[in-house]
């Protein structure tokens, strides 16, 4: 046999490679379509089941009720918003600072290694364990009670690893020459971090924050564990008041409920009418998550326009 019979021509190699490309691309599109079809399917299903309640304004302005047609998600929406506020205020600075420390400041030694392993492990701890921790530590030991503050803190703990890891990835992704440019000008560590590292890492950090918050907004288990109520027929005290000092922190120590708990409560009722409420709540919860994602994308685009 001669070599010409054994070897493919260059044209054959190219067309074989092209065929592989087509197969891989189709496979990728298929997988993507399955994933998005499932999301869209769930959303459409919830939307159609919950439609009667979604178009009723009372659904958004009423407290829960034993009459399904009067029941609303006002307290759950308020609860979720306030809890997420606490979570964001606690988790973002802590997580970003921890990530920056580990990446920029920490020496490479066994202590850092242990911290790193622990942070990664924390991301894998089931959320109900965080609930138990919070029940013991925040509710009883620190006597914070079954409050918005406690819920915000436990969800902050829950998403801390996500924010830390994504901050580290973002900081590590900054080109080495940009970092050297900053240090080359004589910047000390904090100047380099504040002026150049943090701005360059912002898009990545933001993504981590949103992924974290989106996870926190849907969590029910740890919030139930610390004793969130399922029936709240009042609002927490307003954070803003007419008389001095105009800002009020009493809402932090208020009992509360959140959207996932409200949803769970309604879906576990025997009456079919409550299931409509549950579906509608699901739609609102998903809308809140998507709105958060949209906000992140908007901020990222804005930052990019300003920076680049």
């Amino acid at each position, binding site marked *: 046999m001669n070599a010409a019979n054994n070897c493919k021509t260059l044209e054959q190699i190219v067309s074989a490679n092209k065929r592989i490309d087509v197969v891989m691309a189709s496979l990728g599109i298929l997988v993507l379509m399955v994933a998005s079809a499932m999301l869209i399917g769930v959303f459409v299903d919830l939307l159609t089941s919950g439609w009667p309640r979604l178009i009723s304004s009372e659904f958004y302005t009423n407290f829960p009720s034993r009459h399904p047609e009067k029941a609303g998600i006002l307290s759950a929406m308020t609860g979720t918003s306030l809890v997420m506020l606490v979570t964001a205020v606690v988790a973002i600075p802590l997580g970003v600072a921890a990530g920056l420390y580990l990446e920029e400041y920490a*020496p*490479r030694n066994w202590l850092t290694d242990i911290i790193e392993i622990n942070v990664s492990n924390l991301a894998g701890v089931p959320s109900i364990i965080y609930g138990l921790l919070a029940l013991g530590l925040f509710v009883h030991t620190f006597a914070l009670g079954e409050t918005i503050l406690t819920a915000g803190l436990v969800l902050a703990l829950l998403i801390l690893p996500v924010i830390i890891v994504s901050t580290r990835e973002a900081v590590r992704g900054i*080109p080495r*020459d*940009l*970092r*050297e*440019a*900053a*240090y*080359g*000008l*004589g*910047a*000390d560590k904090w*100047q380099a971090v504040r*002026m*150049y590292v943090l*701005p*360059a890492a912002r898009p990545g950090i933001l993504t981590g924050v949103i992924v974290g918050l989106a996870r926190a907004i849907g969590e029910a288990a740890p919030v139930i564990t610390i004793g969130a109520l399922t029936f709240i027929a009042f609002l927490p005290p307003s954070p803003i008041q007419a008389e001095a000092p105009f800002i009020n922190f009493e809402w932090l120590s208020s009992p509360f409920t959140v959207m996932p708990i409200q949803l769970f409560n309604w879906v576990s009722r025997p009456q079919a009418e409550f299931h409509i409420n549950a579906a509608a709540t699901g739609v609102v919860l998903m809308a809140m998550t998507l709105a958060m994602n949209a906000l992140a994308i908007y901020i990222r685009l804005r930052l990019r326009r300003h*920076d*680049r």
Partner: protein
Amino acid sequence: MTHLDSVKYMAGAEVAGSTPVVMSSPELRAEVRNLSFWYGKTQALNGINLPVADKQITAMIGPSGCGKSTLLRCFNRMHDLYPGNRYGGEIRLYPEDRNLIAMEPGLVRLRIGMVFQKPNPFPKSIFENVAAGLRVRGIGDKRVLNERVEQALRGAALWDEVKGRLHESAYGLSGGQQQRLCIARALAPQPDILLLDEPTSALDPIATARIEDLLVELRRTITTVIVTHNMQQAARISDFTAYMHMGKLVEYNGTNAIFTNPKDKLTSDYITGRFG
């Protein structure tokens, strides 16, 4: 103040033979003395001795891996950013005669500016890029910043091209403009020494020529140390040239002398293109 040893280092001294040196001997801005450097266990520099003449361009040439960039990065202690690196010997900084290797790295970098191989502007506006070094030094006064930024941009021959869009992103500039912006950024704080690490290796010939013109314009105003893989570049712009090979300094002389009358066989092999 220390002066260059006129016999050993003077440009053209060897060529001129016994005729007395006409050029006045330039003063030293820095002097590398018996400098060695290790990346972990790997020795990259071995007993380097090199004078750096004040307000002159000193070029370092040599084949890849000879240690020329490593030596340059010793001058601003860039190696201290990464763990496991070790220095031996000293780099004296004149006129105050301090050992740069024993100083606080941050302090060294405040006095010695650097321009890198690839243009590396910050993801900020043109103005903020040039102002960065000033801000690091705590200069926040708008009037002073405006003045110094303009001065630096003029110094880097970029002012006329960017004066109308100072507050636009630096990433909108061409590669050559970005590199001149990086030179302006390094010049703005008025450093004692300007280090350039193959500053034109990522640029096209026209942009390269502009940078070379710029460096020649600057050469009587600032002490410059440049690493280049381009021998013609060293010949065109530098006053003194050091040839390095495998972590050692093989030969140092006035640029003319090195290129017309190299004393070491390694040097002559390299500059005649026999290897490298």
